[in-house]
């Protein structure tokens, strides 16, 4: 049991989300769901974060930003794509400006589908991400290339 899974700090970023999933993520931080009891803190800073919680899909404007944020996070790190837009582009997949889900640009570890994803699912997804984080720390994790599903909640 590493310390990582006891103290996962998240960076929450809205790629091109309609804010529906963001509201649900923030609800997790509120007293009703209270993820701080798992040691989860919402830092706004990639250098302090272990888990990148992303909502919304990738478009031309946020492509470099997401890459930049991911690169500034220290290893080991995991990415949780929250909502169907983050997973695959969602209903906006065919739009001219949307490239696709988050896994177009960075490797995603956990997909949390839903529109909007429910707080319970989000918490579940983060907990799953924690075990992947542990595997990464121990060096036993086999990562998938971007663009392929890494096995999340179906």
């Amino acid at each position, binding site marked *: 049991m590493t310390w990582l899974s006891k103290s996962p700090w998240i960076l929450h*970023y809205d790629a091109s989300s309609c804010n529906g999933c963001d509201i649900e993520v923030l609800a997790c931080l509120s007293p009703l769901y209270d993820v701080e009891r798992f040691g989860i803190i919402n830092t706004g*800073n*990639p*250098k302090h974060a272990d888990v990148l919680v992303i909502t919304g899909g990738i478009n031309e404007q946020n492509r*470099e*930003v*997401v890459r*930049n*944020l991911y*690169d*500034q996070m220290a290893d080991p790190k995991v990415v949780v794509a929250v909502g169907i837009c983050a997973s695959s582009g969602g209903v906006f997949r065919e739009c001219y400006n949307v490239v696709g889900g988050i896994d177009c640009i960075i490797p995603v570890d956990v997909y949390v589908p839903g529109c909007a994803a429910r707080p319970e699912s989000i918490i579940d997804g983060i907990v799953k991400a924690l075990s992947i984080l542990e595997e990464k720390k121990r060096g036993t994790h086999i990562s998938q290339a971007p663009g392929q599903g890494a096995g999340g909640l179906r």
Partner: protein
Amino acid sequence: MINNDKKPDVHLFEGESLITLPFLILFPAAIAAILLLVPGDTWRRLIVQAGALIIGIASLYLLFITPGAGQAFFPVTGGWITTLMFIAEMIIAVFLIYLGIKHKKYLALFLVVAQAALLIFYETSAAHGAHIVPDLFIDQLSLIMALIIGIIGSLICVYALGYMATYHELHPDVKDRRRSFFFLVFLFIASMFGLVFSNYLPWVFFFWELTTLCSFLLIGYSGTGEAVNNSFLALNMNLLGGIAFAGALIYLAVISPGGDLLSISTLIQSGHVVALIPAVLIGFAGITKAALMPFSAWLVGAMIAPTPVSALLHSSTMVKAGVYIIVRFSPVLTGTTEGLIIALLGGFTFLLASAIAISQSNAKKVLAYSTIANLGLIVACAGVGTYKLVWAAIMLIIFHAIAKSLLFLCVGTVEHRIGSRDIEDMTGLIVRMPKVAVMMLVGIAGMFLAPFGMLISKWAAIEAFIDAPFGLIFVAILAFGGSITVLFWSKWMGKIISVCPVAELVENRISRQKWIVLSLLTAMTVFVCLAFPIISSHLIEPFVLSVYGQTARLSQDNIIIMAMMLFLLMIMPFSLLWFRKEKNIVAPYMAGRPATPDLHFLGSMGVQRQVGLGNYYFEGIFGEKKLFMAGTALCFGLILLMGTLTAGVAL
């Protein structure tokens, strides 16, 4: 309090060794005369460096001939010397009148004439009965001042060689008057030695006036309108002090026709009642020379002069003459209301000048205000004048002289390389000029950080003020003023230490003389901090003991702890050698925006913008205009009060 019944140990003319005293006065004057005649640069370099070396060695030699306690005297027979000085003073007055008329500075004219008139009155009527033999003397306080003048002064002269060469390259429009420049600088050093070695007050006055003259001419070196105006401002304020000094001479000649009280050593021994009025008048002269409020404008204006002038005259030596004379008279001032008022002047100057320094981004102005502030602090200690405070004041004199001259010389070097003396342009200096930046950091640290000397002195001052009468005012001033200094020094350090990834190295082409001088001064800043217990026990404590009958020192435990802190502080930077291998370098956080290393980032609509990082200057709170007016008004009121009280005593 003074021990009136205990005469200090008097050693009259201890062998030939005391000949060093007149040597140190005459030799730099001779060098000055030679430099005025020598035309070429090569000869000048040779003579300046040789002269500086000899002066430095002679000053160090003083360490061996100064008695362990008390004073040693060197009488100079020959009344013709005093007459010669009077004639020289008249010539200088005529010269100043000529310049005043030429530049249409009528206030200066008036002041020169007034001072000359007082002098003539003194010579013709009051001084006739004076029959004492003037003498030179040396004790630990003069020794400390002489070491500062001899070592730091010579180093600055050597630095000035390289600096003035570059200065004239960069300012082709300024007439090359380097012969007079170096003449004046060495003449100044000679007069400073004369000032601190003279026991006979008319001689002190002569050398005092010489330093005013040198400062006036050097400030106006570049000949621009602003330089001329600022030089006359300095002249006017220093002349005001000179008039007060002349007044003191007349008063002393009147109350003691035999002239015994014209000797500093006798005057101070004679106690409050007799010596208070001259002490206040000479103290006033010291206040103008040390640029305390309300007379601080001239020092800020003097920053227009070339940097070696600022380093030599306006931070380490000439202004120190002002505080030196007040420290000399602190046994007389202690416990009196006038002394308290002088101390309050110093204290408020410290507080307000430090506050103004926060709002300045011109590096030389920051250094000027910091100098004014620290001089104010020294005077505050000397004015209240308990034995602990005099100890702290002398410590402050030593540490300030070294660190401040180092900083001025660094700023001068940086200015010539990057073309600006604004702190905002010194961003990332640690990458652009690493060695100079490190020296600058040492200098700044030496001004306010534990365990360096200035902080030790301020700490000693707080502890000493608590037990002094009305001490709470000064403790509050020190607490708030000290924190203020932390702000403006740290801001500056932060600018220097930012590691901009994109910056070119501009440290080449700095002359070897400059490197030697800067490195020596940096080493001295650190060394003096390490050696301060020895300096205290061998130089400062004997002086305080002989004047007050008891002395202060830092406790043994604290000395050990500070040595440990200094040791830690010196080894921590070496950890960089270990950490330099760090390979995982990422960009700083710019809200995720892709950015270039020099902080250009892609903004909205795809437009590239640049981040500007500027320090806070708090114009609204610490602005120069407001605080300067407040300080001038307050301190002017204090001076009026002191004048009234003194006049009351006289009548």
